[in-house]
């Protein structure tokens, strides 16, 4: 019976062959929660009678959403997490270590063919490593902590084939924004998205993570990558709910406009829009290649008057690498300011809140009204290079314009 990637992985963990639409009780290999979701998960775990974790070595707690703690209430939630980690022996990532999904990827917590459960809606990011990685709420996660299992409905799958070579200046972010435009906010609801095709072969892991990260914005249960360097492949005649082919060589830089991630337009439609605040960060686009892309645009320039650029590297490891290779210096000289490796401004609870009437251009994944902490601000989403170019110009502009300008100086 031909199977999709999701059907293969779930079958292996259910102990029997399952197909799309069936309910399966599965063994979970690894799980995680952040400071946004761990306090409720710990509370529910205790209420369920939980004392010992199903597998402490495969459970991680990460402080990333409000890092470092902005007030004593949050500081005490962080303390709760530290105490729980000490008591149970689970893995713990301290303030400044980085964003949960980045840490799970960097430290080998999500492995090909495994089932990974995260109490965060962007857990799908880890599908880039070949895992079946799903997001859940705190109480669901407590069930995993207690039993090492969860129940799930085997999803139907959407197969997305990417063809061609990425043109200069076009990135995985532009690809996925175009896909979010096509599929829509609930076009992949309850489904698993498989990303495959010749384009994927040449994408770095960092770029592949951009694709699986924003599967969440299409309503998907998860996103997964199929590539020759990953062990699992879908069967050639597996049945898919939908097949999409995207020829990437035709793409323009893409931008999500206020107030929904799936309101995507080519940059041509929004160029010239004045911006006040540029943000490079989030689990979507804050890795080394993203900082390097921004530095390539910003080198030798200063920020436009009235514009601030805030950068939150995805992890301490990314920060240290960017420090060593000179990337941070270029960004700082241009006027960028650096904050804790963590979610920061993306999630609106802590750091970098925009003011009334301000326009933000961000490398993150969501631009819902109020997302960054102020419903009276507007957020555009784009690639790090577009964010950097716009920070120099003071308005939304494509990177090639800024780069061409440098050549004529």
């Amino acid at each position, binding site marked *: 019976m031909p199977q999709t990637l999701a059907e293969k992985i779930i079958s292996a963990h259910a102990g029997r062959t399952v197909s799309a639409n069936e309910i399966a009780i599965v063994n979970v290999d690894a799980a995680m929660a952040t400071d946004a979701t761990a306090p409720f998960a710990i*509370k529910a775990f205790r209420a369920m009678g939980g004392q010992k974790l199903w597998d402490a070595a495969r459970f991680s707690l990460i402080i990333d959403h409000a890092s470092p703690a902005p007030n004593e209430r949050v500081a005490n*939630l962080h303390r709760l997490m530290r105490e729980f980690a000490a008591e149970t022996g689970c893995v713990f990532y301290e303030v400044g270590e980085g964003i949960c999904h980045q840490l799970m990827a960097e430290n080998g917590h999500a492995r090909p063919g495994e089932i990974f459960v995260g109490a965060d*809606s962007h857990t799908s990011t880890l599908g880039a490593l070949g895992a079946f990685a799903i997001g*859940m709420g705190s109480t669901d996660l407590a069930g995993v902590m207690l039993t090492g*299992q969860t129940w799930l*409905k085997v999803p139907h799958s959407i197969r997305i084939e990417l063809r061609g070579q990425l043109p200069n200046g076009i990135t995985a972010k532009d690809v996925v924004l175009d896909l979010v435009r096509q599929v829509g906010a*609930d076009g992949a609801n309850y489904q698993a998205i498989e990303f495959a095709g010749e384009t994927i072969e040449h994408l770095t892991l960092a770029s592949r993570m951009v694709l699986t990260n924003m599967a969440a914005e299409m309503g998907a249960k998860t996103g997964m990558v199929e590539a020759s360097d990953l062990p699992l492949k879908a069967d050639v005649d597996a049945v898919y709910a939908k097949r999409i082919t995207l020829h990437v060589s035709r793409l323009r830089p893409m931008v999500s406009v206020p107030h929904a991630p799936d309101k995507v337009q080519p940059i041509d439609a929004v160029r010239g829009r004045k911006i006040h605040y540029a943000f490079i960060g989030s689990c979507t686009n804050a890795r080394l290649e993203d900082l390097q892309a921004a530095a390539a645009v910003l080198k030798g320039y200063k920020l436009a008057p009235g514009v601030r650029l805030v950068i939150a590297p995805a992890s301490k490891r990314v920060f240290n690498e960017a420090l060593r290779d000179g990337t941070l210096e270029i960004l700082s000289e241009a006027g960028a300011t650096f904050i804790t490796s963590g979610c920061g401004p993306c*999630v609106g609870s802590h750091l970098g809140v925009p003011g009334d009437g301000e326009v933000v251009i961000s490398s993150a994944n969501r631009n819902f009204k109020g997302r960054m902490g102020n419903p009276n601000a507007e957020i555009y989403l784009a690639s790090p290079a577009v964010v950097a170019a716009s920070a120099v110009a003071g308005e939304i502009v494509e990177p090639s314009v800024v780069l061409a300008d440098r050549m004529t100086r």
Partner: protein
Amino acid sequence: MNTLSGLAHVYHIDNIDTDRIIPGKYTKTLELDDLAKHVLEDLDPEFSQRVQAGDILVAGHNFGCGSSREQAPLAIKAAGVSCVVARSFARIFYRNAINIGLPVVEAPEHVIENGQPVRVDLETGSVLNATTGQTFAATKMPETMARILKAGGLVNFLVKHGNYQ
């Protein structure tokens, strides 16, 4: 508690995301009392004052999309809403609602206007508009979910059963 009756608060809007249900800035706490005060405030600042215990929230497609924050269904429940009826739900929100014991009913064809009395039958999965007399079918919930909801949420379910089997 198989039937729920209440007045409908209707939003003919799709994709009501969890940031609009409860903004991130209010979620950094274990206390639930405050959540009720801020529920839906970026969508309708008056909702939290208008809603009465037992009322029913009615919405369009993809209700609860976005973040996995469990505070979203918790805030709705804390405000006194007895049930959410939507044309469709985002998956993490749907699971979270069941897990915390907030009934969620997916009725794609509902025709309900603001203020109309509604009766939801959780057993048969149907929604009655008591003003017009029309009944709308609801998508059947997976068995496991129905058991969890009947137990009053996942904590109660696992305390009782110890596992998912």
